[in-house]
């Protein structure tokens, strides 16, 4: 090599070019690294933004506030105040009646049915619960919050279509023309085909334009055929065509009316945290899944913390250097790499089929997850034990402590923060784990909130999986909402682990 270098000396100019090229390569290489990290960071931000945008609407719901007279005769005729009797009362028709009264112009059977479709099927249950909580309301006039259906809710959240409104200018007159209507206005701003013109409590959809006159079809009949003055009528434009949304123009106009009157309002959906799963998106909540996850994690923690720490102590302090110890160590490393779904197969074949434990139970889920995170905890605990300097143990041994006394009284307490950090990270891992729980049947539609370790339950990630499969858009936002909750839990757990590490970490 040296020979050739001497044989063909480079000239100065060449060398400059070469150096420049080499520096360019250097910058390029460094840029690749930055780009790789940037791509990863952008992906992470996109993921969070996507989940937030999709999920935040799940934390609000739209409710109507209807004045309803809580009818003694329909609910508690004998004035018994007995919860059992109140429970069987008719809470549905008062809501329907009060809601219908808001729209006196709706008279046909089909329209009324459509109107009632805007209310959630759980509205009567809410009303019932309200009266059961406060029986003094019976016979009184009450302001009752009435939940809207998921489609109506989605519309009011603006997730079905955008809405633009323009105030009408000039006087608008309507003249019937066969099946259709001719609208004329002396104002300047004119709507385009597809727009809705609202006047006198009625609405017309513009079909075509012809010099200063509009041809329109009637969506809702107006109260009077009289002309509407400037400002008394307006133009409503939906950005998504009627065929592409689940709320049609008529329903949308009703909802716009409710919103403008201040009857429909957005509230925080505590229901999302306090109710179990439901087939109706607006009624579904994560409480059942959250309880299932908590019960499962309790079993996991109760099993894998003592076993993991004991195994770590044994391997780190007491294990003789022999073949059996080697096998155990190799095994722990291998287990850490086994796909989680295989642990699910173990749970199915061993715990369910062989030992006959109940399906879908947090007990079995906890068992499987404990085996899954055991390697993590053992490895973290061993590292924490190893980080305690040997001088501590030697000092204890020096003043006459037995080996076990030295370990349990001196080394273990000092290693505890590290062990706890590892355990929390293991638990966070277990909280997000889905596949093994699918295998042991924790993947069912379960409405009841689980209260015991052998009740049928789901877990938070499973709920996310189940909801993500459902076609309703409202469930999509519930899914993302549940993801936000899950990520919040993980964030808190990891922050706790970091705090613990920062607070108690000792450098020797």
């Amino acid at each position, binding site marked *: 090599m040296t020979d050739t270098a001497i044989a063909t000396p480079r000239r100065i100019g060449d060398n400059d070019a070469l150096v420049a090229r080499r520096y360019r390569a250097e910058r390029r290489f460094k840029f690749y690294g930055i780009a790789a990290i940037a791509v990863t960071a952008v992906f992470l931000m996109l993921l969070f933004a996507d989940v937030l945008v999709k999920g935040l609407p799940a934390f609000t719901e739209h409710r109507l506030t209807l004045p309803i007279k809580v009818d003694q005769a329909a609910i508690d005729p004998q004035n018994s105040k007995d919860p059992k009797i109140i429970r069987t009362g008719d809470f549905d028709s008062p809501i329907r009646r009060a809601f219908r009264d808001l729209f006196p112009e709706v008279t046909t059977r089909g329209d009324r049915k459509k109107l009632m479709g805007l209310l959630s099927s759980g509205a009567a249950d809410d009303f019932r619960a309200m009266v059961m909580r406060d029986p003094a309301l019976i016979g009184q006039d009450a302001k009752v919050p009435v939940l809207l259906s998921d489609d109506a809710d989605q519309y009011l959240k603006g997730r079905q279509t955008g809405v633009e409104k323009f105030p009408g200018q000039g006087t608008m007159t309507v003249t019937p023309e066969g099946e259709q209507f001719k609208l004329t206005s002396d104002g300047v701003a004119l709507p385009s085909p597809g727009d809705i013109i609202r006047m006198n409590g009625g609405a017309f959809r513009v079909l075509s334009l012809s010099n200063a006159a509009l041809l329109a079809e009637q969506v809702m009949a107006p109260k009077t055929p009289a002309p509407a003055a400037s400002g008394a009528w307006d133009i409503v434009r939906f950005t998504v065509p009627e065929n592409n949304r689940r709320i049609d123009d008529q329903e949308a106009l009703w909802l716009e009316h409710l919103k403008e009157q201040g009857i429909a309002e957005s509230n925080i959906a505590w229901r999302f945290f306090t109710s179990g799963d439901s087939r109706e998106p607006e009624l579904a909540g994560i409480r059942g899944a959250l309880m299932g996850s908590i019960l499962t994690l309790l079993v996991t923690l109760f099993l894998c913390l003592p076993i993991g720490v004991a195994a770590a102590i044994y391997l780190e302090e007491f294990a003789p250097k022999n073949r059996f110890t080697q096998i155990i160590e190799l095994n722990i490393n291998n287990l850490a790499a086994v796909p989680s779904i295989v642990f699910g*197969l173990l749970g199915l*074949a061993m715990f369910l089929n062989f030992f006959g434990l109940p399906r879908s139970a947090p007990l079995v889920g906890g068992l499987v997850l404990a085996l899954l995170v055991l390697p993590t905890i053992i490895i973290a605990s061993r590292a924490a034990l190893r980080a305690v300097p040997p001088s501590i143990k030697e000092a204890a041994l020096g003043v006459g402590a037995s080996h076990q006394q030295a370990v349990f009284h001196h080394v273990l307490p000092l290693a505890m923060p590290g062990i706890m950090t590892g355990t929390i990270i293991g638990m966070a891992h277990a909280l997000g784990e889905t596949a093994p729980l699918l295998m042991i049947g924790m993947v069912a539609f379960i409405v009841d909130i689980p209260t015991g370790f052998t009740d049928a339950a789901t877990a938070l990630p499973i709920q996310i999986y189940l909801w993500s499969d459902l076609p309703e858009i409202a469930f999509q936002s519930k899914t993302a909402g549940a993801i936000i909750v899950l990520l919040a839990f993980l964030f808190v757990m990891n922050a706790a682990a970091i705090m613990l590490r920062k607070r108690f970490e000792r450098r020797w």
Partner: protein
Amino acid sequence: MSGTYFVILAVLVGAGFLLGAQRARGLRSDTGSALHSLPAYHGLYIAAAVLTVMMAIYVMAAPLAEHYVLRQAFGAFDPSIIAEQLQRDATLRDIQNLVAGSYQGEPSDTLKAGAAAYASASSLAFWGLNGLGVLAGLAVIFWGLSRIQPELRARNQFEHFVKYVLLACSAVAVLTTIGILLSVVFEAAQFFSKISPIDFLFGLQWSPQTAMRADQVGSSGVFGIVPLIVGTLLITIIAMLVAGPLGLFSAIYMAEYATPPIRAIVKPILEILAGIPTVVLGFFAALTVAPLIRSSGQSLGFDVASESALAAGLVMGMMIIPFVSSLSDDVINAVPQSLRDGSYAMGATKSETIKKVVLPAALPGIVSAFMLAISRAIGETMIVVMAAGLAANLTFNPLAAVTTVTVQIKTLLVGDQEFDSAKTLSAFALGLVLFFFTLALNYIALKIVQRYREQYD
């Protein structure tokens, strides 16, 4: 039954500890002689003995008691009911409901007789088991108290016990592996008694639901694993095409270029990404990335399946970036500084040093990191369950829908299961394949590091 037993156990263990410690203290003050062990160890000595004996009794007697109760309860029934699992379970539930008073409807006479037998047998079993436990526990306590003497080496005995407990705990890992092997191998063996392993491993069609070939007897479908393997490989390759360069380059940047403040920002980003549950990534892949790829592909004139391998592969690649980068980071950091210094002294730039010196030195570790990442991708379930398809297409087209081994395991086992049908059992055969695939990759990764690692010290 078990609840009461464990309450008794806890009480007797506590009592044994207190009595033992008290007796030892009394001995010390009465005779004035020094004890070999501290009084607490005498207590622990008895408590450990009570725990061991009572647990042993429970483990042996509880299944016997349950068996006895069931035999008594089913005594009145037709043997054909007992023979069949489903009917037996249903009958047992009926009996339990009747005993608990929550039975709906009018019970038959046999059911009443069964319930009466069940009630008397379970109360007998309850008192028998708990009585035996109490007697044994008390006997052990008295035996222990009689043994307490100043010279009793209670601490050594107790520490001996603790050591065995610790050993048992670390053996759980081995038991888990054995459990996985047993459960998977046992069911897979049943599967292979119905379907020949040759058909399974080399068959080009996977269709567990419907009969495709009339000449196959005793099975409901075709179990050829090749399309699944191809699908898994396709998604894994896409994932590694994403994660390989991105992970490696971020590792290089982190290890060689990044200043400590940058490291302090970037490392948490990668850790956050590593901590995101795969079900969340699956949601993102299925509801955001897949439609995006589909619409952009269609606007370019490609025919993209709504559950394309590309979407699942891309997101899976993102999932394993932290895995590749943290392992590679460690390996690159482990290359001694003297090698770099030598290269700089020769006039090499930083990137030349990395390319010509550091990476070759770290290559075995990087290769093993890639292998581990591949094994992680192969075993990943939720992303592919949510974003990849179900149809087993034998194709290498990344825009088509493919299915993977894990998706099929999940599909076959969620819902109704019949453990005598090839369909359900095939999931365990797939599990076996998956287990050995990942184990082999890990083993190879380990061997690569062991064989090619350069010793610099």
